[in-house]
């Protein structure tokens, strides 16, 4: 009798264990995370009609920077000179058509998508980059611009009205990754409100992060991958099967400081994020889509809008998606987007920023040439690792 009962209990256990195992597998499938916990992540929906059309038959070129100011206005920088003859017909002499004209490089949109400001380009007293790259609104409200043109070795600072404030570094004066006066094709700038230090992603020619005084431009410190002394030797092509490179590859594409004072650096072509303390001490690294070749997977990052900055949003212009990572583990929780020209799709998704409401803005380079808005819809259980274009639920596939 006892034996019989034991057998019954035993077999129930077996059934239970098997059932649990299956359930766990199912859950794991739907949560895209190890274990059987339900993973929550921010959910987004593309706003297909943001921003509103530009006036004046203006046309955007490669759009290679986005930043959100304290008013939640969205600032983008694009390259008017990348328009093809088919795009700037009205600027030609004689005009070959009425469409279109080059929009000014710096454009400011309000949260509703209205264009409310525009400026930029060469002027007196400063050297506008040959190929502007990256835009940042700092905690004082000033606008910083980098550049990755052949001779670009400077960063620029303007007021929101486009009045020139400062230039650090000089065109044509690149002196390599250990120079303390000039840069080498800067991708992006971040300004630390606590210390008034600017972190420069340097860049497309140099292989380092530089920290300068945001007012005087004085160099304070700089470092390469793993906190090494930066080195400009040619690393050759990225090989996913080789040991990780001991230096950053070009371009060093972002350097963003979190509220808890960790610096996240985009080593784009090495397909990795490296994390540092503000003094340059290496903390850890994480590879993302490590088989990605050519222009790499780690293009730009933004932190989620909560005070803890629990998530990192990472723009991958190689695989045409935005990953959502847990910031503490740097694990990918989910992703959205796909290649294409429709809303919520990307071609060369290059830059990413968040506003105070948690919405995401992205810009696209190459022939993408857009800024898109992804509306924050709160936390939701993750059901797919790869969500595809995040369309409003009424219209998704």
């Amino acid at each position, binding site marked *: 009798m006892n034996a019989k009962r034991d057998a019954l209990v035993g077999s129930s256990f077996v059934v239970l264990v098997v059932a649990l195992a299956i359930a766990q597998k199912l859950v794991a499938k739907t949560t895209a995370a190890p274990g059987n916990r339900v993973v929550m992540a921010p959910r987004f929906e593309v706003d297909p009609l943001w921003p509103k059309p530009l006036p004046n038959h203006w046309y955007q070129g490669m759009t290679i920077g986005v930043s959100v100011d304290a008013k939640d206005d969205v600032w983008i920088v694009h390259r008017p000179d990348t328009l093809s003859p088919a795009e700037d017909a009205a600027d030609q002499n004689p005009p*070959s058509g009425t469409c279109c004209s080059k929009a000014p490089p710096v454009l400011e949109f309000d949260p509703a998508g209205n264009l409310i400001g525009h400026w930029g380009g060469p002027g007196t007293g400063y050297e506008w980059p040959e190929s502007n790259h990256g835009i940042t609104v700092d905690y004082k409200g000033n606008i910083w611009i980098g550049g990755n043109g052949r001779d670009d070795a400077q960063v620029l600072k303007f007021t929101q009205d486009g009045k020139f404030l400062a230039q650090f570094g000089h065109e044509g004066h690149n002196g390599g990754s250990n120079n303390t006066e000039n840069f080498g094709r800067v991708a992006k700038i971040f300004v630390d409100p606590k210390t008034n230090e600017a972190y420069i992603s340097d860049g497309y020619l140099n292989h380092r992060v530089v920290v300068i005084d945001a007012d005087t431009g004085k160099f304070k410190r700089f470092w390469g991958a793993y906190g090494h002394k930066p080195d400009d030797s040619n690393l050759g092509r990225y090989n996913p099967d080789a040991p990780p490179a001991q230096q950053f590859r070009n371009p060093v594409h972002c350097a963003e400081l979190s509220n808890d004072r960790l610096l996240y650096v985009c080593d784009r072509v090495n397909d990795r994020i490296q994390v540092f303390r503000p003094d340059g001490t290496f903390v850890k690294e994480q590879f993302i889509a490590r088989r990605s070749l050519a222009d790499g997977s780690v293009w730009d990052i933004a932190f989620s809008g909560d005070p803890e900055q629990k998530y990192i949003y990472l723009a991958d212009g190689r*695989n045409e998606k935005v990953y959502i990572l847990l910031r503490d583990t740097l694990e990918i929780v989910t992703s959205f987007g796909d290649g294409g020209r429709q809303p919520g799709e990307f071609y060369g998704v290059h830059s990413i920023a968040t506003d105070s409401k948690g919405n995401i803005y992205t810009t696209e380079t190459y*022939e993408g040439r857009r800024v898109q808005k992804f509306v924050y819809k709160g936390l939701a259980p993750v059901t797919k690792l790869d969500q595809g274009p995040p369309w409003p639920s009424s219209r998704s596939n």
Partner: protein
Amino acid sequence: MRNTCCNSRDDAYTVARQGSPGRGFGIGGIEVAALQQYGWHLPCEEDMRERIGKRAIGGLFAALLVVLVLTEKRLPGSTEHEKSAPHAPKFQVDPLWPLPLTNHWVLGSVTGVTVDAEDHIWVLQQGADSLGANEKGAILVPPTGCCEPAPLILEFDAAGKLMASWSGSGEDYEYPLSPGGIAVDSRGNVWIAATGELAPVIGFGPRPAKPPPPGDAEVLEFSSVGRVLLKIGGKKADQDSKLEGPLAVSVDSAAGEVYVADSGNRRIAVFDDASGAFKRQWGAYGEKPEGGNLAPYSPSAEPAKQFRSANCAAIAKDGLVYICDRQGDRIQVFHKDGTYLKEAIVLKATLGEGSVWDIAFSSDPQQQFLYVADGQDKNILILDRNSLETIASFGQGGRYPGEFYAVGSVAVDSKGNIYTGETSEGKRVQKFVHLPAASLAQGH
């Protein structure tokens, strides 16, 4: 440094483009209305309202606005001619059409769009040849990342769902190089034109290290599932059937004929749709077509006696055939036998690729309107079919919904909705929903 939208240059352009004698700003007004109707708020309109009275220039805008409103209201009755001018149909872009493709497929340059009898939308695109390495990473060796070219031909239902897709098959079938226009006949067979030469690259598009050898300049007929049924042209064709840079194809199923816009031969060529036998041809003004070079287009010169680039052959229900002469900035109208009827110059100042890329008819039984894809100015023009006057337009250059880059194809479904295809770096198909007439009364 602040936004100066609706600046004087822009308005001047509107007038220069669209104005006609005696109409003042009337046509410009329709254009503004049409832009608003397709789903966008014009930023300048809001600005106008806010700033009137605040600035000296505000007064000018106010005056302009009043003129626009008045002129538009008066339009139908202001002159004898305008009595007959119909209200232009209005459209609103559906920014979420079609549904996203699966399999990480992306569209290359879209060169043809057509609608079949079931209101399914057929799209022809140029695939891998028109995609940059950074758009087709998944098919490179080794793979570098996203994405993969979609099949050449895609069929969507009216809701935007992909119903079928294929790239063709059959004995001796060769993947066509540089496909162009597409048509579906009454039997449901699919016709495409292919120039056989890779198109020159505009902008930052792909630059193949080694261009492929030329393919056949041909027109292909496929069954609805992609099996080749008939080929017209190709290297072995006789003199009459030899095509050079054919850009578009239309089928007159009732007559059993297929019309080919044989651009390089500066002719419209008509073939038997069952045997592929050559039947007749004509050039501009119905004259004998002559190949060879033409002097570059000049708006001040006499219209060319030959087609510069025959880009479409659209057959109306009443038997008139509308030919796009793209770089000639004109439409020529013929009877089916090739008898010349008339021509209309459209946006004469347009240089570059020209203004008349493709034509579709409105869905009403009279086909009262022509919709002209103007890929150079990046909008859709609405013409009164009878007078061939441009009465409205929508769209503008850009990458956002309702904007265009090289919009080169246009088609209409039975409900009057418009579908567009963008070639070169546009690489999209878009839907513009026809707004019912009732909603028009609510305007202004």
